[in-house]
């Protein structure tokens, strides 16, 4: 595989429960390419959660090697792992996991504050963000840039990035709402914005639609698929729902801590063409500088409902 984002060899993880040892991971070797759309499935107890924790740098394997963007992260200490999480990993959880009492904009800003904003700041600043706005936006941008120069910090630039991420998930009119003022689907959109704001190497989605009704689930799936095809973001679903798994381009089935099988998903054919080949797409792309047309095409091809990602969901207007 060319340019693997994730490469693991013989990952092992063993838990001791009383007298017995449980091999949660028993030699897992996988490769995930950049821009890939992948599902890891398996029944509860199959080890998929343990694998996600390790892939997400929340945990370390007991044995084996895990390379993330070429860097061996299997033996890093807690602080280094936290750094990796802030810059390279985005999580989307089943239970949303938003902070209470904090508005959407600040939720999304959080990973940037914790260090995820440090990567590639110099070139990020003005042009890309300014281009999308009108003349008034340019004025605002200049003020913001001046202020951030004054502060010698990325404060306002981070705010801009958070704003862009929320626009990308269609929540431009919900930025100052707190979780209690948002519907489940909207909360999960905030979580997705939070995951993608640092421009991570990979987004790990752990049963992302598990707590949502089927219609909202469909919209969120569409959003995640679009982010993958549009921005070339690597998305890995961890799920036990066959329906979700089938909509990716590759499915890894886990059983008893091993990869028991690998299949192509329904998106397999369509997606082979979309994210992989063009070199421009393979590199992490700054937010907001994308061609929307190709993505819409890919979606239509896959038979998904063509919900433009930048548009607010019509049925979720009220809290």
């Amino acid at each position, binding site marked *: 595989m060319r340019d693997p984002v994730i490469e693991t060899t013989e990952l092992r993880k063993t838990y001791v429960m009383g007298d017995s040892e449980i091999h949660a991971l028993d030699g897992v070797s996988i490769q995930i390419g950049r821009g890939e759309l992948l599902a890891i499935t398996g029944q509860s107890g199959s080890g998929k959660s343990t694998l996600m*924790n390790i892939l*997400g740098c*929340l*945990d370390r394997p007991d044995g084996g090697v895990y390379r993330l963007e070429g860097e061996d992260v299997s033996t890093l200490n*807690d*602080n280094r792992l*936290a*750094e990796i*999480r*802030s*810059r390279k990993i985005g*999580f989307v*959880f089943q239970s949303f*996991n*938003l*902070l*209470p*009492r*904090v508005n959407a904009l600040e939720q999304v800003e*959080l*990973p940037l*504050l*914790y*260090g*995820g904003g440090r990567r590639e700041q110099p070139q990020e600043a003005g042009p890309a963000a300014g281009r999308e706005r009108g003349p008034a936006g340019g004025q605002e941008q200049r003020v913001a840039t001046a202020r951030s120069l004054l502060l010698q910090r990325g404060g306002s630039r981070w705010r801009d990035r958070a704003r862009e991420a929320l626009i990308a998930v269609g929540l431009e009119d919900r930025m100052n709402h707190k979780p209690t003022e948002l519907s489940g689907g909207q909360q999960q959109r905030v979580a997705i914005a*939070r995951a993608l704001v*640092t421009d991570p190497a990979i987004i790990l989605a752990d049963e992302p639609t598990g707590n949502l009704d089927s219609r909202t689930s469909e919209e969120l799936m569409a959003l995640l698929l679009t982010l993958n095809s549009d921005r070339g973001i690597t998305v890995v679903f961890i799920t036990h729902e066959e329906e979700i798994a089938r909509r990716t381009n590759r499915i890894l089935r886990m059983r008893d801590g091993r990869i028991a099988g690998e299949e192509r998903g329904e998106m397999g054919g369509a997606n082979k063409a979309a994210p992989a080949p063009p070199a421009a797409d393979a590199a992490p792309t700054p937010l907001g500088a994308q061609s929307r047309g190709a993505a819409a095409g890919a979606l239509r091809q896959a038979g998904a409902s063509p919900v433009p990602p930048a548009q607010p969901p019509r049925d979720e207007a009220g809290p």
Partner: protein
Amino acid sequence: MNVATLKVALSALAANKLRTILTLLGIVIGVASVTALMSIGRGVEKQITGELQATGTNVLFIFSGRPSGSSSEARVEELTYEDAQALEELTWDGTLVGVAAAGSELRLNVVAQGRDTSVSVSGVTASYPDVNNLTLAYGDTLTQSDIDSRATVAVLGANVAADLFPDADPIDQTIRAANLRLRVIGVLEEQGGGGFGGSPDDIVLIPITTAHARLSRWLTARGEQPVSSISVELLDAEEETINTGSAAIREILRERHEIPDEEEDDFIIISPIDLIAAVSGALAVFTAFLGAIAGISLLVGGIGIMNIMLVSVTERTREIGIRKAVGAKRRDILIQFLVESVVVSLLGGLLGILLGALISFGIAQIPLGGDGETLQTAITLDIILLAVSVSATVGIFFGIYPANRAARLDPIQALRYE
């Protein structure tokens, strides 16, 4: 630590207002009691040193004897009236204003017009009242000619006059002390308080020569008339004046007492400045003691902070998990919780200082005796600095354990926490 961290801490505190206020209250009460009690201590300190200063900081007291801890075995010469007379010659050098000697005080029963009272009768020199800041209420004071002629006259302290002559003019009345009949020539103003050696309102002053001739005829080995103390009034209380004065006095007394060079002084010179320093040193210990007692309540307040922070860490386990999942390091979490507890304790400290100042102001308004005297209190800068720094320390000390516990949480388990 930055503005964002502070904002997070404040919003977390605002989310649990009642709990925050109750925690705050513990610190407020602790700091307020430290502030109030220490302000009382400081006030008493000021009051007492102020009284000492009123007796005149430019007066040196000379006693016979050696400083405690002296190992000298040589004989101690008594101070004598003749020593005092020799010191009077020094008044010519411009730094010495007056010399006063007091003979040994005698506790005597004094009788007049069928009333009697127990007083201390002191034989003194003419300048004694002046040097010791005793002012005459009415009548005459002792004169040099009274001293020279061994006149049988007396000046009464205010209480003595009131006891013996409750409704008559004491001037020219006769009082009897032991076998001595004395004519009252003057009465001193009420001095209040107690200098040292009992209240000056309970004394009867008679010429030192009379006391020696009629009450105690005892002479020293040198054949001189002993006195219990000599006070020397200097021109001012400047350190230089006091040092030159003491040096001159020392030289004369050593010469008169024939003390060899290698031998220690057989007299002690005390300047009121030393005395004030000693007393305020003791009072500072007293103030610190009061502060320490109040500090116990501050300690309890600190434990309150720790308790609440531990509850808060448990409650917010999931939040900590989320923060860690998106990249918060241990240090980030540690600082977040530490800032929270320090904000509580500092805020409590500031409110406590205000409350303590109010309490101490209130205490200063309560009359103590019937005479409208009140307990003075003083809030000084050092009390405020102490209260602020102690409360900040309490916040850090009692916050560090819960914060550390939060920082060490495993993100996976924290995320799973319900």
